């Protein structure tokens, strides 16, 4: 059963990877109306994540599959319970993904405008809803004795969960805008830096409120300590952006997202989905996990392949390390 505890953190790691990586994709998508003054700007913005959004998004597929394999009960309860929220996330991810690919296939401005809209909505909706979903998991939901979610849609839209959603929304927004300062240059970069100063302030206030709430209501000493690190990292990222140190600022934004998610997982521990109506019905690491044999097989696979994955994905980021410029976008045929 010890492996189940390891897998709790592997699943946590995969979600951290997802939110750090696709988090800035969401932010870039949401920034289009704020930073994309003309079509060339918008293309520059989209191309900052062009080569990598797909691999970033794949982290959620792997996280989901690992959740399924390591904690079938958790996967079953969570995915059937948060039905409509997940449906919206899926629809958003669908339109976002095809929009990246199809937007540049037709030079008409009406066509592009349409896909810009879908990128914006397709980025904002998951950024909001993932926060709502995770806050609800931490807070606990109504479960039956057989671990079936009984609450329906409305209880999921409670103040704490909505604050969680707004937190991830503004956090990913700032994360993405800081990423843009790292990946663009000139006037666009400067505008992004200024936008990150504004949105960063909002993010600090909202995220701090959420983390304090989480720690007091649901947290442990450890999750609280990690939440403090997240808050400090966020403030550091903010100050670094003020001074125009975009590389370090982005690194600290990534630390912020990672530690904030980690803090949620620690607040959850050792439950995976607490039952708010009766603690005896809670899903825990122990009662939701797969058999020892399955987890052993999975552990070996993850230990071998996760490092390999991280190496070749790291290399990909290195290949595309250059800043995207207006000239480079304009030079390409249409």
């Amino acid at each position, binding site marked *: 059963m010890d492996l189940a505890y390891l897998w709790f953190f592997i699943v946590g790691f995969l979600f951290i990877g997802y939110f750090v990586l696709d988090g800035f994709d969401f932010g870039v998508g949401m920034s289009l109306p704020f930073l994309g003054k003309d079509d060339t700007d918008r293309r520059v913005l989209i191309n900052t994540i062009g080569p990598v959004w797909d*691999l970033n*998004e*794949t982290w959620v597929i792997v996280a989901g599959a690992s959740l399924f394999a390591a904690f*079938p009960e958790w996967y*079953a309860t969570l995915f*059937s319970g948060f039905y409509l929220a*997940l449906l919206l996330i899926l629809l958003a991810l669908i339109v976002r993904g095809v929009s990246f690919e199809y937007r540049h296939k037709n030079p008409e401005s009406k066509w592009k405008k349409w896909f810009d809209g879908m990128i914006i909505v397709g980025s904002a909706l998951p950024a909001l809803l993932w926060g709502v979903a995770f806050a609800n998991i931490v807070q606990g939901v109504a479960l039956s004795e057989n671990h079936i979610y009984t609450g329906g849609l409305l209880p999921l839209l409670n103040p704490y969960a909505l604050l969680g959603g707004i937190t991830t929304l503004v956090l990913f927004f700032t994360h993405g805008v800081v990423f843009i300062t790292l990946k663009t240059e000139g006037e666009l970069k400067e505008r992004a830096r200024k936008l990150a100063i504004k949105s960063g302030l909002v993010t600090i206030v909202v995220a701090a409120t959420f983390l304090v709430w989480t720690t007091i209501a649901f947290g442990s000493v450890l999750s609280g300590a990690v939440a403090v690190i997240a808050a400090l990292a966020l403030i550091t990222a903010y100050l670094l952006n003020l001074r125009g140190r975009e590389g370090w600022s982005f690194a600290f934004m990534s630390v912020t997202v990672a530690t904030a998610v980690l803090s949620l997982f620690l607040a959850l521990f050792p439950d995976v989905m607490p039952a708010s109506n009766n603690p005896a019905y809670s899903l825990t690491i122990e009662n939701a996990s797969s*058999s020892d044999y399955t987890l052993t097989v999975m552990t070996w696979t993850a230990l071998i392949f996760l490092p390999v994955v991280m190496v070749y994905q790291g290399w990909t980021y290195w290949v595309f390390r250059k800043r995207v410029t207006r000239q480079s976008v304009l030079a390409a045929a249409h």
Partner: protein
Amino acid sequence: MEWLDPLALARWQFGLTTVYHFLFVPITIGMALSVALFQTAWYRTDKVHYLQLTRFFGNLFLINFAMGVVTGIVQEFQFGMNWSDYSRFVGDIFGAPLAFEGLMAFFFEATFIGLWIFGWDKLPRGLHLATIWLTWVGTVLSAYFILAANAFMQNPVGYEMNAEKGRAELVDIVAVLANPIATNQFPHTILGSIMVAAAIIVSVSAWHLSRNQNLDTMRPALKFGLWALLGSGIMMFISGDSLGLAMVEAQPMKMAAAEALYTTSANASFSVFSIGTPDGSSEIWSVRVPGLLSFLSTHTFTGEVEGINDLQAAYTAAYGPGDYAPLIWVTYWSFRWMIGLGALAAFVAVVGLWMTRGNRNPGKWAWKAATWSWPLPLLAMTLGWIFTEMGRQPWIVFGLLKTEDGVSPGVTGLEVLISLVAFTAIYGVLAVVEAKLFLKAAQKGPAPVEMTKVDGSDEEQPVLVGTVY
């Protein structure tokens, strides 16, 4: 209300989203291979028309790839959303190949496709070529793992029941990955995917040839497509035959249902076409090949093939009262049309190769007809999956769990209806957009390659520009 039955709606949703997703999957697998081969030919020979073909079919490939990726996420989430009791029951086993697929295949695919699309001017030529091959390896690995997962549903192996937890648990991962249904389904699926891509290449090149344009690229593309279609088509029959044998072993009911064979018979015949009573239980008229069903099932013309009635009796004895036959008209016709359309595609390849042998050109009507090759393998493949999955009914995991017991207990019919309508609407719109983009790109034809002088010599080399969104 009957129309708000979560089970029926969840089944329709699974069928709809899976069939839709699987239109893009074989194109991705087959087209990635074709593009990799074109690019390899360019790498080896430096002939510019191979580069043009790489970029041209690469573009068509990417228009599809995006759809395959985004519709694939739905598939993974759907098990938990609509089939949570199924997920609870098999998660210990079924989740592992899905996680393997993610870790080993999806990451691979998603990373290297990005490198290929955007890396034309950033990677050395050899390395850039490697990225498309690695993308293809990713698609093939992914196919294997998902087929292994599916094979468990057709033929559960390598598990033990845990009565206390009420679920099946993995005891032998090798048995799960080496499931004979998976090892036979895998070549069948990969070959089918090659047929699908080959038929699309034939259609696209035939369209250009019918207008007497882009001959320098479209003529070699046509030949490539025809040979690939023929080669994979021939091998397809061999793989289908061995899959059939494995299926008879694991799910005799499915083979009986494929022929609507009610009584156990030796020397069972195969009806190519038949007209039956509306309920399908008896036949009015048919065209039959004697002994063929026996041959398909046992490799002898006199082998005994179990009939639906006997199997029904045996299963009732084993699993209790219930209806253990799938919908016969679905299995019967999907099986036939799968074989028929596949054979027709291979026949198109033979005729096409004959008519274009040497440097011959057929009449315009033949080019026009060849333009319509593309639906044949695609439809055959779709029907093959409908046969495989509908033929498994009433089971979701054969012999262990019925489909009706796998559906999410906490999800209402209204919720499933909302998602079914939403997916149908969005998939419908995207299908139109996709088809338009695909047609536009296909009809535009290969773009000319801009050449530049190599520094300090008279040699020319193509200008390689990375894609920009």
